[in-house]
């Protein structure tokens, strides 16, 4: 089926695309960009958590010592750069301190003042002063400490069995278990959602990044008339097939490279992402195979459509401005897939994952979030293959008819006519 002529076209397309500056930049920059985003997030979190100045007041000396001990333990385990000054004090003395240090609190020199009254051992009510009531960051960091101290003080004053005390001290631990057809998998919903979003973005970016330049290349061939020389040696079908397969190989290579960091993160082999150590990702081999096959079907489908559009118009501006309806075939499923992330079992998600064009973006998202029934995969694959078949058939006709046509741009009516009668 693929003869020497088509092979020569494929070879040229692959070389031209893979060695282009645009391709190399995009292939390398996307993973780097995502690492930068994660790194910056970590950096900002570090900045937010550092250099806070806290004053801790307690009416009971015992409570104050427990607070100091707990905060020191935390600081030793995981340095959080918290400057704390402890002081035993009653409400009156606290009032004087607040009055005399109002400016320091307002200026942020003192980020927070915690007061643990004696009554806190009964009603668990403590007071926290700061210049920003919305600043939950510092309060969240000390809330658990205060709770532990109050709880310990409370149980220590009573004669209780150690196992009861241990039980009371213990926090509830939630084990997140994802139910699948084949069994149960320990999982972290956050990790799966992140990978679903990532897959959706990868598909969206790659489909556009591969298909749009292919359209421009076909259009340039037509406008520059180089297509006439090529068509004197190869048939339009061979030329179109060669261009599409060549571009698909380039896109597939790019997608493969982009998936490497994802696989490394999923397997825990990428130490750079230790900041995300509490996020678990469950990706198995069959998911990756489906993702890549699904991508291949998608990229071939959209390359066919975009190539036909490139062939129809006499200049790149007209081709681009007429792309809106076709772009919607990528953009709408992209946004639907985003909504499916929150509820992958919704009717919209189920139907979307088996609809022509939509399936390419929606099914991979559902696949990583839930255990999709096998019949739905089968329907999606059949729908994608059927879509590809009809798109190649129709777009091939359009391409053959229009690649040498010059003059006025075709109307939608004319395009319909070519498809019907050819």
């Amino acid at each position, binding site marked *: 089926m693929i003869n*020497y*002529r088509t*092979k*020569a*076209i494929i*070879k*040229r397309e692959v070389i*031209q695309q893979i060695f*282009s500056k645009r391709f190399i930049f995009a292939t390398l920059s996307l993973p780097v960009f995502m690492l930068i985003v994660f790194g910056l997030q970590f950096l900002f979190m570090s900045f937010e958590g550092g250099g806070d100045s806290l004053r801790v007041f307690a009416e009971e000396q015992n409570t104050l010592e427990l607070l100091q001990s707990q905060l020191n333990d935390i600081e030793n385990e995981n340095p959080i750069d918290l400057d704390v000054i402890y002081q035993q004090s009653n409400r009156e003395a606290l009032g004087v301190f607040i009055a005399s240090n109002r400016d320091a609190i307002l200026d942020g020199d003192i980020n927070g003042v915690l007061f643990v009254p004696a009554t806190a051992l009964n009603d668990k009510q403590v007071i926290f002063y700061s210049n920003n009531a919305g600043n939950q960051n510092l309060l969240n960091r000390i809330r658990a400490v205060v709770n532990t101290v109050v709880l310990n003080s409370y149980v220590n004053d009573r004669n209780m069995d150690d196992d009861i005390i241990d039980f009371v001290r213990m926090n509830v631990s939630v084990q997140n278990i994802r139910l699948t057809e084949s069994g149960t998998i320990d999982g972290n919903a956050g990790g799966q959602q992140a990978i679903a979003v990532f897959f959706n973005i990868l598909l969206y970016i790659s489909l556009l990044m591969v298909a749009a330049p292919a359209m421009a290349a076909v259009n*340039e*061939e037509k*406008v*520059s*008339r*180089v*297509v*006439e*020389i*090529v*068509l*004197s*040696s*190869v*048939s339009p079908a061979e030329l179109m097939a060669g261009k599409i397969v060549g571009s698909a190989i380039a896109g597939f290579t790019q997608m493969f490279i982009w998936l490497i960091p994802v696989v490394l993160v999923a397997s825990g082999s990428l130490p750079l992402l230790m900041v995300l150590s509490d996020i678990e990702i469950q990706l198995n081999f069959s998911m990756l195979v489906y993702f890549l096959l699904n991508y291949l079907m998608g990229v071939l489908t959209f390359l066919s459509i975009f190539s036909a559009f490139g062939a129809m118009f006499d200049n790149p501006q007209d081709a681009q401005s007429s792309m809106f309806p076709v772009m919607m075939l990528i953009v709408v499923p992209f946004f639907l897939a985003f909504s499916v992330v929150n509820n992958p079992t919704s009717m919209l998600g189920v139907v979307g994952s088996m609809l022509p064009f939509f399936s390419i973006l929606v099914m991979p998202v559902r696949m990583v979030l839930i255990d999709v029934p096998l019949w739905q995969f089968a329907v999606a694959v059949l729908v994608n293959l059927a879509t590809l078949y009809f798109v190649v058939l129709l777009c091939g006709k359009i391409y053959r008819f229009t690649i*040498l046509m010059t003059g006025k741009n075709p109307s939608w009516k004319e395009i319909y006519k070519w498809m019907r009668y050819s």
Partner: protein
Amino acid sequence: MSELEVRQLNKFFGKLHAVKDVSFNVSEGAIFGLIGRNGAGKTTTLRMMMDIIGPDSGEILLDGKPVGHEFRRRISYLPEERGLYKKMKVMDILNFFMEIKGIKPAAVKNKALAYLDQFQLLDRKDAKIEDLSKGNQQKIQFIAAILSDPDFIILDEPFSGLDPVNTNILKSIIIDLKQQGKMIIFSTHLMDFADKMCDQIALIHQGELVLNGALKDIKKQYSGRNISLVYEGDISFLDENPMVEAVHDYGNATGISLYQGEDIQKVLQLLIAHKVVIKKFDANEISLQEIFLKVAGEDD
């Protein structure tokens, strides 16, 4: 000796009958000129011969058999409107055009370098196409067309846009190819080139073949009543003369056509009587330009 036959080609674009029952034969080792006005149907005919577009009816035969894929390997085409992949380097693009013909680039590397040298482009072999001038890009296209050593070469307006030096280089290569026994078909609306280079011509007018055959035979058919004149003075009196069918005046050189049966000597006597300074008087000589104007210019 091979013979390429174009038999009753027809092509419609919507309601426009662009090519109407066009038939002609081209022999091996001949330069064949497909001439006609802009929009006459030359390029469409050539595209159908190259199987770039399919005819609505008619066929192309080589030695009596319909041409197939093998013919495509033996034929090369230089289209009228030039274009190359701008981002590719000169050698890469020549290699690509060889690969789509099933020829390994290494097999023609030395030949490619020799042609580049002949066209004074050897130092630009690693340059990108976009960095070459339009004329140089055209030369690269011509090299791409002949590098595969085709048996049949179709050149659509090969001389347009070339400077006189490069036109001469191109002409000498075409003549060289003819001497090698290649069949060369070129379309042009520049009658001077066709007149000097072609062995056979076909004139297409409004999609129809109106002249076809060996150039010398066509000239013989038209020249009996023609005078080619180079002069100084006023010959406007000829316009009203009942012997004269048409005067194609270019200032100092003129072609004069007489009606059937009129005597050329009488025209010479008239010119002398009107004190026209005659620098050249060539009886029975008609240029292709004149034939072209006579046949294709009748509607204007």
